[in-house]
């Protein structure tokens, strides 16, 4: 009987396990939607300023938001920025933030954690103490400090978050490695004379990477929320930048409308807020599904 290549079989099995979970289907569907929007942003919402597509177009400077109409499909924010445009290009910004922060934090964290876990001893002590210093810094305080020092901007926020987020990955990978380090197959590799570097790269990391993947997928969502919060308090993206948090910031004064019609400006907050919620939900569902799929205790039934 002709069988598929084993890697293909493994992949099929993993996909089966992931998609057993209805949450996963919703999560991946949402993610697919966001990816499509991000990829086709120039087509869906043609940029007005060709050199800087992230600046939302605005006609006029009136502070009162306008409700959805023919020219502005989802209305405008305070300052007449087009909400639809902002939502579409904000997707790209969200992915940018997520990938940058998770990527940098993940790489740094895994590297340091792997060294710390595998070698133990003084390396472990030193690295762990350095990490402890990082743990003492609250994320938001550090971000604010950096912004205050270097000026506002989404890039500064991303750097600040990356600097702080790697500490989680160090812990996770270190604990995985401590478990794996004394396993027989690692000892067998040592007996065969395989160098430490190769053991870490080929044996340990492929086995230890699952919790990291799960964490990374959850972080994609939570980083976007943190960045959104910083933008909301005015520390992140500049005014008019296509960023969901920035758009919520613009809606600050209009969350509750005049007493006789409190929900008049619902679109200013619901649209960007809804985007954030759905984005984070998508990643959380995916993270949950991955965790269920990769849990070695229930994986192979």
């Amino acid at each position: 009987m002709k069988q598929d290549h084993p890697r293909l079989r493994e992949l099929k099995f993993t996909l089966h396990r992931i998609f057993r979970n209805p949450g996963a289907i919703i999560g991946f569907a949402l993610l697919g939607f966001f990816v499509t929007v991000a990829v086709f942003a120039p087509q869906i919402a043609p940029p007005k300023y060709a050199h800087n597509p992230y600046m939302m177009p605005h006609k006029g400077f009136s502070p009162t938001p306008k409700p959805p109409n023919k020219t502005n499909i989802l209305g405008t924010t305070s300052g007449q920025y087009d909400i639809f445009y902002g939502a579409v290009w904000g997707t790209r910004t969200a992915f940018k933030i997520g990938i940058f922060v998770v990527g940098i934090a993940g790489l740094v964290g895994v590297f340091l954690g792997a060294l710390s876990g595998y070698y133990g001893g003084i390396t472990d002590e030193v690295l762990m103490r350095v990490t402890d210093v990082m743990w003492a810094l609250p994320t938001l305080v550090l971000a604010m400090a950096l912004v205050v020092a270097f000026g506002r901007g989404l890039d500064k926020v991303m750097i600040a978050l990356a600097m702080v987020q790697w500490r989680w990955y160090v812990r996770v990978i270190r604990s995985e490695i401590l478990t794996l380090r004394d396993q027989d197959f690692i000892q067998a590799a040592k007996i065969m004379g395989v160098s430490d570097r190769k053991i870490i790269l080929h044996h340990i990391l492929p086995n230890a990477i699952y919790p990291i993947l799960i964490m990374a997928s959850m972080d994609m969502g939570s980083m976007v929320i943190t960045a959104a919060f910083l933008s909301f308090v005015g520390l992140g993206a500049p005014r008019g930048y296509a960023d969901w948090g920035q758009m919520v910031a613009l809606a600050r004064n209009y969350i509750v409308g005049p007493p006789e019609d409190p929900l008049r400006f619902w679109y200013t907050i619901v649209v960007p807020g809804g985007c954030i919620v759905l984005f984070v939900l998508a990643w959380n569902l995916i993270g949950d599904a991955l965790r269920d799929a990769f849990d070695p205790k229930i994986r192979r039934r």
Partner: protein
Amino acid sequence: MEKILELRRLKKHYPIIGGVLRREVNAVKAVDGVDLDIYRGECLGLVGESGCGKTTVGKTMIRLYHPTHGSIYYYGKNGDAAERLDIGSTKRSTLKNLGIRGRLQMVFQDPTTSLDPRMLIKRIIAEPIREQVNLTGRGLEDRIVRLLELVGLSRDHLLRYPHEFSGGQRQRIAVARAIATDPEFVVLDEPTSALDVSVQSQILNLLKSLQQRLNLTYLFVTHHLLVVKYISERTAVMYLGKIVEIAPTADLFSRAVHPYTHALLSGIPIPDVEHKPRRIVLSGDVPSPVNPPQGCRFHPRCPFATERCQNEAPSLEEVDTGHRAACHRKWEVEELVREKFGDQIR
């Protein structure tokens, strides 16, 4: 017979760090002074219960661990005393450069954890070969297939993951990996304990035939006395980090000297309804290797201990040709056992 390995006063202690200042307060004395000679081409059995240090001896011998004291002498092919090398104090990288790394290999107990679950079989077996020689492509694959065939598997099994095989097959793969570098000496750490009875005999027969075909020397570590009787020519018994008796296997089973050996032998469940066991049931549990008893380590559980045993540690002394035991009452033990427990049906 020429020697291949010689252990002199080998010790392996694991420090216990305690206190605020992280000092060494005590140590787990896993191996506490072992002298052993291993001859080329033989299969030496090493038996004992959990915590006696037999696995640690095996792993330290091939330099997976660094010995705390003592020497491990490796004799090159000519068996000349001048050619011996203390691999205990040689750096691991030097061992690799000298080519000795590939000559000392090991097969682990549990084939589920001794193979990387994320690697294909082809890669698992290729790994040790690639460390030694720069072989790739077709040549490498042919060599791997030859190894698989030696252990009773085939080319079809190359592109699969370990979890797709049964326990016995996985252990065969582990054996193939161990012999991939043409070793001289292989430590077999309970290779059949995790396997079913019917598979056990397959693997034991395989190991026996490989030993003859490839001229291997084995150290067979196990707690299963009947298996060791089947496969080894000489057997050593360990208790709490020291060797208490060593003899040709037939002698050990028929004319054991040390009381612990008697207890072990009488404890084996025999699959024979005629055999009515008269067990020497030892009192108490195996003491911890952190604080071994004074004098003879076995004295708290020994049914024949005297005052001398509490104060003075016995050394391994010869009782018969090739048969050594560490017991103050070695000449009387057989009589004592018969008195107290009646005639054992052997």
